[in-house]
């Protein structure tokens, strides 16, 4: 748990550092600092259309930028591979992503395409660079995803000038997610939760951060289908089905965590009594929790234990 909190700090700090770095790059006197996002986008669009690429490729860029450790870290990752035809370094090299150099190297008066939180270039324009190559089923629903509509840039989560992209490491991806999703970060530490705080599971086991065609960017066609991936025993169909279970697991459970046992939204018997009020039984007053079969032990589940569905011919009340 501590380990992942610490890594979360590292990610947050690396984001801070990246911001500082990018500020150092741009040098406060950079002429494009005063441009608005729209003006910057217009200039870069024009530059991109003119296609004035450098004469020597990467060496033209590294003449000035080779002393920057972050720049050179590109070569530690796949995007810096020169021997793979799919890599940007095997195509237009640095300019594959940062656009044509133009007159950028003559006094640094022309902007380049830059990435991350500190650039004014709109996220959609930044992302068009990445999507130029990364157009596969994993990103198929990106354009209609919440992350896209919230103008999240690929570079907000992914780092390519690095030996390893933390968003692709199962021990670090949760930290990447909870650096923004702080409520879910807290949920992981509640009384019951999926084992996310120890990185035994990842957020991406259930969600596709690039969007999906299911609510909440879930990886399967429905919420229940996503749960069945690991809880296939709840799938059924059962001879006797419990209606809210069949309809939506989230009717009773909060998958991110709960102060109640078993990730239940409310404790039993109150959770059950919010739907069941048969006189003298379902709506029975349970004044104390450990005093009778109605409040002690497993409460309602002492008798109705097959609450996810029963395959017993006499199991219509989920007791067998």
């Amino acid at each position: 748990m501590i380990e992942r909190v610490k890594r979360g700090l590292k990610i947050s700090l690396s984001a801070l550092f990246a911001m500082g770095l990018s500020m150092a790059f741009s040098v406060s006197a950079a002429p494009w600092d005063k441009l608005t996002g729209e003006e910057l986008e217009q200039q870069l669009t024009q530059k991109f259309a003119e296609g004035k690429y450098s004469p020597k490729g990467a060496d033209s860029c590294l003449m000035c930028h080779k002393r920057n450790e972050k720049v050179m870290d590109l070569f530690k990752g796949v995007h810096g591979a020169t021997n793979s035809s799919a890599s940007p370094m095997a195509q237009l090299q640095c300019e594959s992503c940062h656009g044509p150099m133009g007159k950028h190297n003559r006094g640094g008066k022309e902007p380049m395409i830059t990435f991350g939180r500190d650039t004014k270039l709109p996220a959609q324009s930044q992302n068009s660079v990445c999507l130029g190559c990364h157009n596969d089923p994993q990103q198929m629903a990106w354009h209609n995803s919440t992350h896209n509509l919230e103008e999240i840039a690929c570079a907000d989560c992914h780092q390519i000038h690095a030996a390893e992209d933390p968003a692709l490491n199962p021990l670090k991806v949760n930290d990447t997610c909870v650096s923004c999703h702080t409520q879910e970060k807290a949920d992981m530490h509640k009384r019951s939760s999926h084992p996310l705080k120890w990185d035994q599971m990842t957020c991406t086991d259930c969600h596709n951060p690039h969007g999906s065609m299911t609510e909440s960017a879930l990886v399967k066609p429905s919420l229940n289908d996503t749960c069945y991936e690991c809880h296939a025993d709840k799938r059924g169909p059962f001879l006797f089905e419990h209606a809210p279970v069949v309809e939506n697991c989230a009717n009773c459970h909060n998958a991110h965590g709960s102060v109640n046992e078993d990730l239940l939204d409310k404790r039993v018997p109150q959770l059950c009594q919010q739907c069941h009020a048969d006189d003298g039984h379902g709506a029975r007053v349970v004044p104390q929790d450990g005093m009778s079969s109605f409040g002690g032990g497993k409460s309602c589940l002492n008798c109705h234990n097959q609450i996810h569905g029963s395959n017993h011919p006499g199991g219509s009340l989920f007791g067998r």
Partner: protein
Amino acid sequence: MRFSLNLLTLALLSATGAVTAADFGIQHANTAKVKQAAYQCKQCKIPAVHTGSVTASLGYVDSSDSHAGNAFGTNDEGVVAGVDANVSYLNAEGYRSQLQAHQLGMDNGFVSARSGKIGEYKVELDYRNITTWQDEAQTQLWHHGGMLTPSESVRFVDLKLERQQAGLGFEYQINEDLNTYVRYDREDKTGSKSASLMSPRPINFAQPVDESTDKLSAGVVLSGANWMTDISYHGSQYKNNINHMSLPYAYDVYAATPDNQAHQLAVAGQYRLDATVLNGRVVAGRMIQDDNLIQVAGNPLQNWDGQVDTLDAKLAATSMLTPRLRVGGSVDYSKRDNDSSVYEFMQPRLSYDPLSNSFKQNTVLDIERQTVKLNTAYRLAQGYRLQAGYDYKQVERSYGEREQTRDNTLWAELDIRKFDTVRFEIKASHGIRGGSAYEASELTSSEEQSLLRKFNLADRNRTELELGTQYTPANWMSLDLTVHYAIDSFDERKGDDTVLGLHESRDYGYDLNLNLFLSDNLTAYGFAGQQWIDSEQAGDQANIWYADINDSFINLGAGVAYSGLLDDRLTVGADYLFANSNGETLVDANLTGSTSYGDYYSFNHSVELYGEYALSESMQLKLAYQYERFYDTDASEVGVDAITGLTTLGLGNHNYNAHQLMLSFSYIL
């Protein structure tokens, strides 16, 4: 609904005339003047063939409770050991392999291997072990082959589940426009879990778990200049190796979870037209379960032919009409059609009463859901962006107290990024749920209280507010604050102030996160968060009673790391985390007065102190100490025979201090 669809159609039609957004994709690059032959990369630092690190850890665990294994990755006491690795291999031809391992040798860990050539093929192999420890149960039922045999001696069972997951995947790209993939996964789950049976009184018991799930996915991806489609199959088969549970005096008293399987065929696609992008998907599925039924009087079947057909379809579109204006929307249809057979089965009462047997049909539940969503985003000015949307959801059920529910929700969000040092996000939404007439259904239960409104079907007003700020006064500090408030209000019956079920639920809280980058060597962080969930409900047992449930949660953490010691070779750090979950229940039964439930809370302190020392460029030592203090209590958990007529699994509460000291040696390639 009709109005909503027309709006969506209008939006889609408008989108066809959209402006072209900036697209810096390399396929659009103007390379007419590029002389790639002259490109050089003499200054590129191509890394060694092998990169990464391998770590071996040896440690000592002092713990009196196996529950600590959740945090430590193993519940072994005494000496523990594990191996971690993160190694990459890249050769001159562009082949790349990667191996990552974590805590190999412990009860929680994984190993993952990838190998292939980008744009040609990829092989992936994964193994993951997830073990979770719950409580220690006390039971006098000894299990063997489905028979639970009572004994005078008490059996102590760790309620733990171990999942061993393995997967093998292969991806082969035939050409630029045609890609194929196949992946097989298997999970074996073993252990014990808490369960309960009736014979004739409730007896909690430790149910053995031994089950497996096999999954297969395969697909073909076709793509063109501005389109892509993915045609795939997904299959899943669940097998339970534990049979029905019996007692010596009650045969097959508890039905085993039946084997089942599910199959899905999916076609998904994307079409891009300038600044407009369309996504669509159709998934047809079938879930099958035909396991043998327990043979008892009143059961006409040897096995039941359970079959549910599903259909999920979606069409979504988004378009940048102008650089400032985006519009989008989606239409979603989902159907669950239960085609299983219906028969009448005798239903003995749960309590022992042989005279009350009755026959009941199994209910086949059908659900049909339609969703329409519209959204727009408009940049009001530089740094100000307004989003708004409308969501409509209609659910029809073939059963239950309400055939149809309809949810209408309006939402809006204002993002302010005008200032260099501070950002604001303000979100608000209001939703109303209504629907067809609410009537207690004879199909589900003839005894249901007619005044009850089930919370997932009842009329409901939902209002949510959220405020987020990110304050970055300097590049060495950031402070984030998020505050949220949500209220669900369930309508009262017209002209009747008696409402049974959930009345109201409020969920509110805040999260505060501070990150400090004090120098190149010194970093620190802190966070604090609280959440409250308050619910009010009512029931009726001769008289109306009320229950207030007040759940609360607090989460605190802080840490510091300093790396400037011994010529920057030594890094030391400390981290602390505190979490406290609490649930309070107050029942007001009017005539008998109000009563509070007993303690129901848990808290956890975690501390880690560590030091990392670089022996050389390629070797590193780490010494880490981890302390876990865990306490939970639940007044509903009582002794095995503390309640007359009920046999429990005893007190499963935890109260422990656990320590782990770990020495790790890393070799950096």
